[in-house]
């Protein structure tokens, strides 16, 4: 272990970690360029490197890209990567009221803390935690998606009914295109453009960014409140917020690690689950959705914790926990490394050097993130609207095009943006729609597979309700949904009794 620690601290590895984090952060900050794309694009650079150097560079790019997604989320209300969806909910309101610099620093601190928790889990608990991934079958994924959908209650500002309708609309939109479980073409209105379905990243950019731009061009008011005095990084203030929310930070990092372990779930689900839990356990006076720093802490710590968590099944079982892990897994095969439990014994030096390297890359994210974040914030705040609007619009077009090198995605992004703007005007918010879009495929696949297995075993009830993890998730979903109502009733009753 000490040998690996020393190997991770060599100048080459530290420089690779630094460059990887900086490149990843810059790529992740551009809407449309996801962590998967950041890793995929830069993977060929690693083919000629020794395996540990290659892994450290890829891990650093990945963790940097996940963090970089917060920039656009906070400053433009557009998640730079899907992992930063929940960051928009409080990050953008903070930026609008003039606390964008504080939000950026909080996001950096939370991302570093979450990343370290994920890396620590990878370092110490990889083999036992990988069993969690194996114990999740289709029914568990279905119930996990249902739990995710219960977050609509937390994400619905104003009308719960409109939130539920928005979530259902998102679920239906996720069905558009060729069904994954069969060859049926669904809900395309006869359009060839829609046959390949609606890309989640394109939808995210459209639903979050286009409405902001439509409103931005309509009035002469500034995009964000400009700061009148030099306030620096506001590191002390940010640290105080993070310290005050240490329980949220730890809980969210643990959620991120566990969700990261589950193949197919990823940073977006982790961020939303952690955000919802933070909101459910809010202290009096906290106003989530209106610029609450704890919301940024929950989202950013959890999404960066998925990096370490996702590497657990990737390295131990050869099952990628998140999409970027799948790309890294491919690169490992090119390097001649076969993943599996034996990797931790046969290639222990390489694996532990990488894990330490990931830890150092996460720590290096602090100076890199603070500097880049400050620069991004000052640039966006000072930019005249006549430059900002076309620049962001241009980024949305080129970023969306780059997902599949397809103009249809750009058209879909714009149309969804207009639909999102119209629905938003009438109180149907983008967040529940996006939640439906993300969780729809997980819920459908889990449901149909569990149904098929249940019918084949002639035990449908047992398939859905008889498995311990499924029951645990169902109970937790019910607890999440009804505990606020029960606690409120209990408080009222206690107050009445005291009188």
């Amino acid at each position, binding site marked *: 272990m000490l040998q690996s620690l020393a190997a991770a601290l060599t100048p080459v590895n530290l420089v690779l970690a630094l460059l990887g984090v900086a490149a990843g952060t810059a790529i992740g900050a551009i809407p449309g360029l996801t962590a998967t794309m950041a890793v995929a694009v830069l993977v060929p650079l690693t083919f000629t490197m020794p395996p540990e150097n290659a892994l450290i560079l890829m891990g650093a790019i990945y963790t940097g890209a996940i963090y970089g997604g917060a920039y656009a989320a906070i400053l433009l209300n557009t998640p730079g990567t899907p992992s930063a969806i929940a960051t928009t909910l409080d990050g953008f309101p903070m930026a609008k009221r003039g606390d964008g610099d504080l939000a950026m620093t909080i996001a950096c601190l939370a991302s570093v803390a979450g990343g370290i928790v994920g890396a620590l889990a990878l370092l110490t608990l990889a083999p036992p935690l990988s069993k969690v991934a194996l114990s999740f079958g289709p029914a568990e994924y279905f119930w996990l998606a249902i739990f995710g959908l219960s977050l609509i209650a937390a994400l619905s500002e104003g009308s719960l009914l409109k939130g539920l*309708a928005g979530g259902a609309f998102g679920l*239906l939109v996720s069905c558009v295109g060729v069904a994954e479980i*069969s060859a049926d073409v669904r809900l395309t209105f006869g359009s060839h453009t829609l046959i390949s379905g609606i890309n989640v990243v394109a939808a995210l950019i459209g639903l979050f960014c286009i409405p902001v731009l439509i409103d931005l061009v309509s009035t002469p008011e500034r995009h964000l409140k400009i700061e009148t005095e030099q306030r620096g990084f506001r590191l002390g203030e940010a640290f105080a917020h993070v310290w005050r929310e240490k329980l949220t930070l730890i809980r969210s990092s643990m959620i991120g690690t566990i969700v990261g372990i589950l193949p197919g779930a990823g940073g977006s689900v982790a961020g939303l689950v952690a955000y919802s839990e933070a909101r459910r356990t809010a202290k009096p006076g906290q106003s989530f959705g209106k610029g609450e720093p704890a919301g940024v802490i929950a989202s950013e710590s959890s999404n960066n914790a998925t990096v370490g968590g996702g590497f657990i099944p990737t390295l131990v079982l050869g099952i990628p926990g998140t999409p970027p892990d799948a790309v890294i897994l491919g690169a490992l095969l090119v390097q001649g490394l076969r993943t599996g439990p034996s990797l931790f014994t046969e290639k222990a030096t390489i694996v532990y050097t990488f894990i330490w390297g990931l830890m150092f890359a996460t720590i290096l994210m602090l100076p890199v993130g603070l500097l880049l974040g400050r620069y991004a914030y000052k640039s966006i705040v000072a930019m005249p609207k*006549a*430059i900002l609007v076309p620049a962001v619009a241009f980024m949305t077009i080129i970023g969306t095009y780059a997902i599949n090198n397809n103009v249809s995605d*750009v058209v879909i992004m714009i149309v969804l943006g207009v639909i999102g703007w119209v629905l938003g005007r009438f109180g149907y918010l983008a967040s529940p729609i996006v939640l439906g879009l993300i969780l729809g495929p997980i819920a459908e696949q889990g449901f149909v597979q569990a149904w098929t297995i249940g019918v084949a075993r002639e035990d449908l009830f047992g398939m859905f309700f008889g498995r311990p993890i499924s029951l645990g998730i169902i109970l937790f979903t019910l607890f999440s949904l009804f505990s606020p109502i029960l606690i409120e009733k209990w408080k009222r009753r206690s107050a009445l009794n005291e009188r």
Partner: protein
Amino acid sequence: MSADQKRDYGGASMAVLLIGFGAFAIYDTTGYADPDSAVFPRTVAMGLIAVSSVYLTVWLMGRADAATVWERGSWPRRLAFVAVMLIAAFAMPWIGFVPVALASFGLLMMIAMFDAWTLRRAAIYILAGLIIVFGFYGLFGWLLQVPLPRGWLFQG
């Protein structure tokens, strides 16, 4: 606030449209070859219709939330923005990425401009636009190797 402002006509209209979308989804499922493909969208569509119907009922009973307050702003600029974005997306395969990007950048710049144009300001903004367009063209086209559309009209 007047009674009309309180009543969420827009929200109710959207609920009707969502019910229509749900009905279309159910109709669409009748044509699927594999019944497994229909289970999920049909269930969700029924849920969408149910929730939207409950909202409509609540609205008809006058118990729905007040309408969302609309932000004021220029409608011509909003519409022009959407039109430029859509035209840019459709024109890109024909005219090519760079000409479309430059033209749409310029148009969006004019749409989003609220200050008076001066020669100095115009020069700076145009220069900034060129740097952004060609900077991203370099990043995506060369560094990230994204095959950006070259345009059919100008190919031999």
